[in-house]
């Protein structure tokens, strides 16, 4: 634990030191909290960091995350990490290299995990309750074709699947799962007989896994009242499809089911349409994603936001998949969410986030309630409660034992 924490902190402060002297914009945020989980005796330590470095041709945001304990995990994730080469300053066309989601360059609103496009894109889910859509590692083109029309293109030779809490496969088939990991079945029912399962992960050639091409192209139109993005992209499926082969291993006195899992990332092609009506109430954004590889794969989302009084930006929306069924719970199981930050005073802010999956037999809810008091210019104290509930085998229901309450601090500079 100490090793990881020191690595994270060193990296974070190291970057800070370097960047602070070299870049136009350099912002940092470090949040530390102690969370007490309802079903655990010891609290866990959390560290969340965000370093934003931006200059004329370079931009990066480095997300750091750390959770202590045997169930904890950590990540250092620079996303975006982009170097632009402008070749038409007037038309604002540029080539970029690095890591980025092409659609994030078209307007200020990023692609979120609650968007339909985000739902089929690779994500970082190590902080499972706060997933982020990840950018591709490669090159891209942002070409202004006309006043408000931009051609987008991106290519990545390197595929990074969705990162999530590890299951911790051991050589003898035991699991040492991290918090918020989704556990595979523990036993198998073979005609009335329950057998324990031992898993064996066969990743195969890493090189073959990582070196997979990804293509993206699209047209973005940014009007005064309407913005429309139409895209097509081809990439391996971000979440693995486990190819399993099972055998019954008969030992002297016991029989176990030996399951070999070979994760597969089959190629997918998607056509997306994103439409935002700027002058409408709530400025709704509608997204439609249609699978070309499988016509029954469809996603749609509707999101909106508005500000009222001391509610600086209330965001809400719906996300759902249509057509194809899945045995496993998904974030897009008719997700409804609302985010309500409420600035009670200049120093006191009360934030609430509710995400709820409403699909029949998969209903669940995640409610984050956080209160932050800025007692100094760059420091604030945070108290939060996270509650999860839901039916068996629902998205948040799988984590319903992970209710927690925490206190901590935030430091920004």
């Amino acid at each position, binding site marked *: 634990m100490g090793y990881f924490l020191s690595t994270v902190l060193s990296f974070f402060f190291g970057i800070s030191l370097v960047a602070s002297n070299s870049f136009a914009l350099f912002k940092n945020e470090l949040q530390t909290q102690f969370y007490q989980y309802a079903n655990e005796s010891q609290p866990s330590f959390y560290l969340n960091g965000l370093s934003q470095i931006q200059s004329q041709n370079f931009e990066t945001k480095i997300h750091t995350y750390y959770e202590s304990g045997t169930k904890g995990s950590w990540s250092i994730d620079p996303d975006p990490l982009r170097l632009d080469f402008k070749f038409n300053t007037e038309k604002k066309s540029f080539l970029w290299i690095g890591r980025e989601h092409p659609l994030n360059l078209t307007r200020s609103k990023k692609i979120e995990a609650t968007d339909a496009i985000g739902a089929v894109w690779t994500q970082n889910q190590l902080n499972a309750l706060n997933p982020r859509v990840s950018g591709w590692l490669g090159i891209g083109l942002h070409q202004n074709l006309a006043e408000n029309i931009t051609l987008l293109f991106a290519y990545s030779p390197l595929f990074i699947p969705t990162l999530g809490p590890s299951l911790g496969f051991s050589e003898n088939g035991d699991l040492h799962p991290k918090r918020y990991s989704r556990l595979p*079945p523990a036993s198998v029912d073979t005609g009335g007989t329950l057998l324990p399962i031992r898993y064996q992960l066969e990743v195969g050639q890493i090189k073959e896994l990582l070196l997979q091409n990804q293509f993206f192209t699209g047209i973005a139109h940014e009007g005064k009242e309407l913005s429309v993005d139409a895209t097509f992209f081809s990439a391996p499926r971000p979440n693995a499809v486990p190819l399993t082969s099972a*055998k019954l291993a008969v030992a002297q006195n016991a*029989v176990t089911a030996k399951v070999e899992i070979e994760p597969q990332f089959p190629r997918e092609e998607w056509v997306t349409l994103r439409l935002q009506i700027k002058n409408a109430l709530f400025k709704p954004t509608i997204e439609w994603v249609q699978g070309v590889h499988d016509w029954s794969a469809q996603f749609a989302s509707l999101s909106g936001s508005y500000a009222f009084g001391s509610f600086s930006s209330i965001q809400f929306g719906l996300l759902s998949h249509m057509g194809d069924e899945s045995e496993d719970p998904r974030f897009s199981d008719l997700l409804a969410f609302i985010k309500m930050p409420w600035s009670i005073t200049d120093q006191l802010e009360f934030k609430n986030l509710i995400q709820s999956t409403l699909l029949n037999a998969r209903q669940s809810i995640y409610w984050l309630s956080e209160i932050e008091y800025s007692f100094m210019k760059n420091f604030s104290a945070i108290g939060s409660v996270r*509650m999860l509930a*839901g039916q068996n085998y629902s998205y948040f229901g*799988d984590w319903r*034992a992970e209710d927690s309450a925490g206190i901590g601090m935030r430091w920004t500079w």
Partner: protein
Amino acid sequence: MVKSIYFRITIGLFCASLITSCGFSKSFWGEKAPPRKIALVKSEPLPDLIDFFSEQDDIAKSTLAQYEKFILKSFDQVEGKEKNKLSIEELLTLGRTGLAKLSNDQELSLRRIRSILAVLGFKDGISREQIIGLINWAKDNRKQAKSFYDTLINYEQNEFNSSKLIDIIHFTGSLIKLGGTDRLSEEELRSTIEPWIPQKFPHAIKALPSGITLINEVFGSLCGDRIEIGYWNAKKNGDCLIALTEHFSSTAPVFDLIFKKINPLTKTEELNESNRTFVSKFETWLKDHHHPAFKTKTVGDFAKQQEIPEPYHFFQLTEWIPKLNPESTAESFSPTFFITLSKVVHNWIDTFQKSLSDSEKEQQCYKRDWSKCEFKGKFETVDRLFNDEYATLIRVKDMGFVFQITLYDSIAHDLLTKLDQDQNGLLEDDITDLITIIIRLLDSNAFAQNVVNRILEKPVTLKNTEASMNNIKRHGLAEVAALASELIPDRDSSQRTAIRQISSQVYDTQKYHTYALDRLGITTFLYVFNLLMELRQQALDTYDFEPESIASTTWIKRKKIMELMPRMLRAQFPRIYNECITQGFERTCGVIYSEVLASPEKGSDSLEPFEIDTMNLTSILLESIMNRCDRNKNDKISTSALDGFDEKDCVISISQTLVTRLMNANILDEEKKTRTILKIVKWLPPVKWAAKVALQRGTMNGISWRAAPPFSLASRPATLGSIMSLAAEFMDPAKSEAIDNNTEGPQTDAGDELIYMNRLTKNHIPGAKMADRTSAAFKASQE
């Protein structure tokens, strides 16, 4: 304002989300984690295994292919220590975990797994190659398996024949061979079979060790040194069964004829060819293979373990077998006895085939059951035995009847060949034992029935024929049987002349104590026994005797038998019925049958159904007297001054012997007076003349002057009715007198009261109409 509305809507949505979550969360803090999912193995649906026996080849093949794929895939999905193989311990582990489940009881399931492995000869476990071998065997034997299955399913529909039996045995042999060359001791075989016997058959389980010994004995005797005697060697036993079917396949037509599955009219050549080699097949099978004798004690042990009465009859029967088969002893039964049996069968079929006339074969009788075809051939024994005066409801002179008589004739011939020491064509000293054998054969059938009942956990009937007939002296029964066998067949005059010399010895119970039966007599004896059983069954099926079952025995009221006696006579013995009606039913049939019908045990008024046999036997004997003595078939027994042995002499002579024999056999009550009179009648001519008058009058009363010659020399003809009336008077004078005086008389047993005051006539005679007689002699007399 507008914004505040939307704000409220937002708050409302917020609250709605919270409220919704209450519906599916038990608590908001510290809820238990959901259980981990259980993966479900979905196997592809398999077709019904019965489709393997489908008529359509492609469906059967497809079914087998799918099962093959499933079995091999399942096997490939199980990993043991050794690749493509599972050891016995690993298979048992699968059994313990419930993956290989042959019973809901785990221990029983494991024993069944061991059993299957032992039967299939997989002592070290099972490999993929062995499974493929089994599947290939199923493919190669699909047709035989289908035949096996069809036969079992259609058994009730009577589709079973020899070729199907051969298929079954051949298939069984092929199946048994899968067990390989390992040999199993009796104990190992027992532990292999026992797990498959349901617990609800405890006697079957208990009898298994001795049952296996019995099976091994049977296989040993059957196969000789082709197998390892005393052990179960699957391959050798299977090979033996296969060899058995191949060797005996040519005998199939003969067996089919025995079980009436083949038409002798249309399959003559096949039958003759099969019969020609029939005996040699048995001889060559048994030759040079050292077939051991079958120890009869094995049967006794088997019976003892099942707690059923010791089959002493069977053992005493086997005392007799050495006389029929010198290679057998009282303790062991040589398989060469089957050669003896084969000769009996051969002669039987040969005689039967020869008896069928050429015109009959050309006739092509189209009845579905050839045994119902009219017999137009020639077989003397049939002509002698068949009597169209009685039992015509159950007996006609058709091919089935001839088939039956030829069997008895063949048995009789064999018995004579074996037992006739002086080669005079007669069995003399051993008649009693012969008769006992017949009775005990029936007991053996009851014993076999008891074995089956015990295994199926049904009540065991302890009755056997002889034990129930314990009131009848064996000696006396033999006498009756001997007389019947001499009396019943219609012997022509030349035969009578030859026989009479010996018959006079038979008739004279004082002088001679031994009896003689010729071939025809033995045949008759067997025939009569069978006839009595059929008459009894016909009566039980037709009339409601109101049977009661008490302690696994069926009882019927003696009074009910007496009530139904007129109907039984009317149906099966119309001449006797008509004569009794004419003469006075109670005075004739009433007295006679109430006398011959057994008395129940003290305190009871019920008899067992077989007691009806004595009534029928008496009727048969009465008819036979008429058949023998009524030479001109005019239903009258006349006197002839010129004939030293006229019809009445014949009746007197036979009747007195018959009555004496019936008394000796305890069928009739001992009457010293009657014995005395009979002796006097025989030896004093004047008394004989008086007897002749009495025959016609039907009574001894009031014949004093008529008895004196010359009046007595020319007495009028007697009828069967008058003879019966006189016989009744001898049997029970008190009863006869009471009936004559129309008063109540002696009532020894229940039902006796019916013979008085015309109660039978008033209440139990089916109308006043006479019974229809269909005999040729009667029809001729009417024309």
